[in-house]
Every structure is written in structure tokens, then in C-alpha cells.
């Protein structure tokens, strides 16, 4: 199934990293960026993500430009407008009111924070693209099982679910055809779509359940999970380089925050307005 993001098969430093530790490192960067409220810190994280995506992972621009632009435009509209109207000032800081009519006012600092939040979203989306486009989903699940103590029964279930993804579109086409041949038409209106959703949801889910029951029986008949020791058709390893990447991410986050503080660009890092 074609998602907005897809795995981009290639060989690079980032591609070769262990998925679990790569996820941990990227998550550390994401959490660090959420504590910033000035526009410059998220911008730095965004550029770091872009650098890793383009230079370290060698993912071509056409692979990620479409989702990036889409999310940026939509995010910017939402965050900037919301914060212009509903901004909570940090404790003890004045606000500049640009425009006021009745209870509605537009706050300059709110627009600033809106820009910061848009850049935050940019940074988070870029870092997510970095993970999704450099990680084979199968390796990701195997690594979760082998390194993160994720329950293997559920892990293999996810592999089955992932393998089935392209099938659901075909399945939906079959169900639609079956409905049409019996004279149940489709209408393109919003109400028509809602009715179709109701009509197709149950058969689609029922077929998914039937398929998963067959898969489960097949797995049981091959003694899946019957013995205490487990072997894998692919072993995912942890190398010193993976730990180095995790450490590098934490250090990079600390360096960005420290550097911004030195430059005097950091504002209210980690401070949440008290209720």
C-alpha cells in the first residue's frame, strides 16, 4: 500500500543502524524539540534532521518533498492562527496586542509561538521521515522483538498485518463489485459516502478476521511459539555504532539547546505556563 511515506531501500550509515536504537535516538531529538518555544531552536533541529536525511542517509529530495510541503502548509495555517488568538503568555511576560474587538484579540507573541510550533512540526516530520524512509518495516519489527522485548506473538502479528496492507484495497474492490452487481449503487455525495462506509466496513473487517484466523491456524500447525527457545530467520544486531548514534543524538540535542542559550535565542525552554 502506498502511504505518504515509504521505505527507501538504499545502503547508508543511517540505513545500517539498528532500528530500535535509531528510534530511541530520533525520539530523544523529538522530545528535546518539543520543549522549545522560540523559533530558532526548532529551526536548528529541522536543519539537523534535513542534514541527516539528505547527507547521512542519502535519501533523494523527491522522496520526501511532497509530504513535507503538505504538512508544512497545513500545520502553519493551524498553529499560527490558533496561537494568534489563544496564546498563553509565559509567566511574567507582557503580551503585545495587535488587534482587539470584543473578546477576540490577536497577540504578536502568539504569532511568534505559532511560527515556532510550525517549525517544531517541520522538525518532527523530518525526523519521522528519516526513520520511516531508512528502516525496513520487517527489520523494525524484528528488532523490536529482539532488542526491545516486544512480545514476539504480537510482533509476528504486526508483520502479518503489514503484509496484508496491499490486500485490503483489492478486497474493497471485490466487495464494491459484489454490491454493485446486486444493484446497490454508489452516490458521490457526503451522505452517500457515509452510507457506503457503513455498508463496506463490516464485510471488509469480516474478511480480515477470516484471513487472520487462517493465518493463525497455519502458524499453529507449524508449531509457532510451541517451544521456549526462539530462532529468527533474520537476526538484527546491535553494534557499537548504534550506541554511538544514540549518544550522538542526545549530545546533538544538548549542543543545540546549549548553543541557542549562548546566543541568547532560547526563550522559556522547558517552561510550561502554569494553570
Amino acid at each position, binding site marked *: 500500500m502506498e502511504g505518504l511515506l515509504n521505505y527507501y531501500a538504499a545502503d547508508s550509515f543511517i540505513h545500517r543502524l539498528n532500528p530500535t536504537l535509531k528510534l530511541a535516538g530520533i525520539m530523544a531529538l523529538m522530545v528535546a524539540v518539543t520543549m522549545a518555544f522560540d523559533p530558532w531552536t526548532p529551526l536548528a533541529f529541522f536543519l539537523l534532521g534535513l542534514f541527516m536525511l539528505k547527507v547521512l542517509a542519502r535519501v533523494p529530495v523527491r522522496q520526501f518533498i511532497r509530504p513535507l510541503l503538505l504538512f508544512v502548509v497545513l500545520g502553519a495555517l493551524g498553529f499560527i492562527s490558533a*496561537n494568534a488568538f489563544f496564546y498563553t503568555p509565559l509567566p511574567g511576560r507582557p503580551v503585545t496586542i495587535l488587534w482587539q474587538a470584543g473578546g477576540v484579540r490577536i497577540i504578536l507573541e502568539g504569532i511568534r509561538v505559532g511560527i515556532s510550533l510550525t517549525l517544531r512540526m517541520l522538525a518532527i516530520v523530518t525526523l519521522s521521515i528519516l526513520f520511516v524512509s531508512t528502516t525496513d518495516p520487517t527489520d523494525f519489527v524484528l528488532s523490536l522483538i529482539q532488542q526491545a522485548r516486544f512480545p514476539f506473538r*504480537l510482533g509476528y502479528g504486526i508483520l502479518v498485518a503489514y503484509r496484508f496492507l496491499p490486500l485490503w484495497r483489492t478486497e474493497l474492490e471485490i466487495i464494491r463489485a459484489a454490491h454493485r452487481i446486486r444493484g446497490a449503487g454508489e452516490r458521490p455525495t457526503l451522505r452517500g459516502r457515509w452510507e457506503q462506509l457503513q455498508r463496506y466496513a463490516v464485510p471488509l*473487517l469480516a474478511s480480515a478476521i477470516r484471513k487472520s484466523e487462517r493465518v493463525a491456524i497455519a502458524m499453529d500447525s507449524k508449531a509457532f511459539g510451541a517451544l521456549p527457545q526462539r530462532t529468527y530467520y533474520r537476526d538484527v544486531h546491535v553494534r557499537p555504532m548504534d550506541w554511538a548514534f544514540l549518544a550522538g543524538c542526545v549530545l546533538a540535542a544538548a549542543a543545540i539547546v546549549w548553543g541557542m542559550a549562548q546566543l541568547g535565542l532560547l526563550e522559556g525552554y522547558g517552561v510550561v505556563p502554569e494553570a
Partner: protein
Amino acid sequence: MTGERRARGSLAILIGGAVLGIAAVVVYWFASHEEEAWVSWNSLHAVMLAAMGVAAGVAIGSSAEVRRWTTWESILTAVLGGVIGILFWLWGLFWELLEFIKAGIPGYGYAVRDLFYGLWFLAAIMVPYIVRRPGAALSAEMVGAIISSLLGQQWGLTVLISGLAQGGLAEVVFALRGYKHYDWLTLMAASAGAALGSWIVDYAFWYNTLRVDIVILMLIARFISAAVLSGWLGKALSDALAATGVLDNTALGRARIGG
């Protein structure tokens, strides 16, 4: 499943959640009351940390329980979670249409939009209602989050944290009911738990600069939305599926047949 195993499962999950939830707050308290503390105590931070601690503890308790599931239960949970994950992803695209509507209302648009949020808890309600096993709510919600993030969502990998909090707090409700009762009360309380989890994570990541009254309104909107789009819809869909007979070999199907 015997009553004894159900009781053990609910105990393991509740203890795990309580221990890590309390531990998170205690560590934070000590960190903020040091001589040269680099963080200052903030009640909102404490609540967020406690919720994330509870979710993490529930995850540890659940993963021990999932190892005892049958192959059929785990594949069913994962496949249903995966199909609902596609729905989560599509809902994320639909959500962006609401962004325009919301931006057009210079008022309480944020809270109005959250009336559509509840669908993202569907896996955490529907799958435990069908499978009725300790850990099902968290597992299904996590699978949905993993699949939808792999397909590419605007919130990126933060949906994994959302999935953990939503599924984790819904799981707490099922555990408190001892994995014996799957009535309206339980389903509604579980969807409210998931709504609370989503709100805490979203507040931390996106909304902590907004005015408090708006944020509280958003929470109320999510409670309403969760009751309809995951509580009611999850039960209705599951019952409709059970009526077709495909769920006869699940706990829900057996409960329908055997009474």
C-alpha cells in the same frame, strides 16, 4: 480463560502502572527539590509524567500477559489493529480538512475540531471488547499507531507515544474492571481514559502555549467524541461483526453463544 488468570493479569497490569506512575512523580519531586535543582516543580508536568509512567508500567505488565495469548488471539489483535491503523491514517488526512474549518472559526475552533478526535481510540475499545484478554487495548492501539506512522502521518513518530498513552489508560480501565465486565460502563470509561491519554500527550507536544480554558474545552470535546466514535462505534461494529459469525471463535462470540 479462568477467573484466576484474569485476576492475575489485571493485578500485574495495575501494579505495573501504579509503580511506574508513582516512581515518575517521586523522581520528578526529588529532582525539583534538590539544592541546585535544574527543573522547577510544575503540577502539569507532574500529571503528564505520572500518566506516561502509568502507561509505561501498563506496557510492561501487558507484554508479560501477551506472551500467554494464543496465536489466534495475537494475530487477530494485530490484524484488527492494523486495519484500524489504516483508518487512523485516513482519519489523519480527513483531519486536515477540519484544519481549514477550524482556522476559519476565530473562536473555539480547536475544541470544535476535537469532536472528531474520538475515532483514534477505536482500536483500544473494539479489540479488547472482542478478544477480552489482559493487554489487548494497549496492544491493538500500539499496532494501529505503528501502522499509521509507517504510512506517514503529519505528527510523525509522536503517534507512537500517543498510542502508548491512549492504549495504556484505556487498559487501566479494563484492568480495574478485572477483565470480566465488558458492558457499556466499562467501554465508556475506557474511551474516556484513552481520551485523557491523548489529551495529555497532545498538550505536551502541541498545545501547551494555548489558553487553559481552550485546552479544558478540548478535553471535554474529546470525552464526548470518544464516547461516540470509539465507545459506541466500537461496540456497534463488533456486535455487527459477531452477528456474521466470523467472531464465533473469540471471547465475544462465545459470550454471545454461551451467554
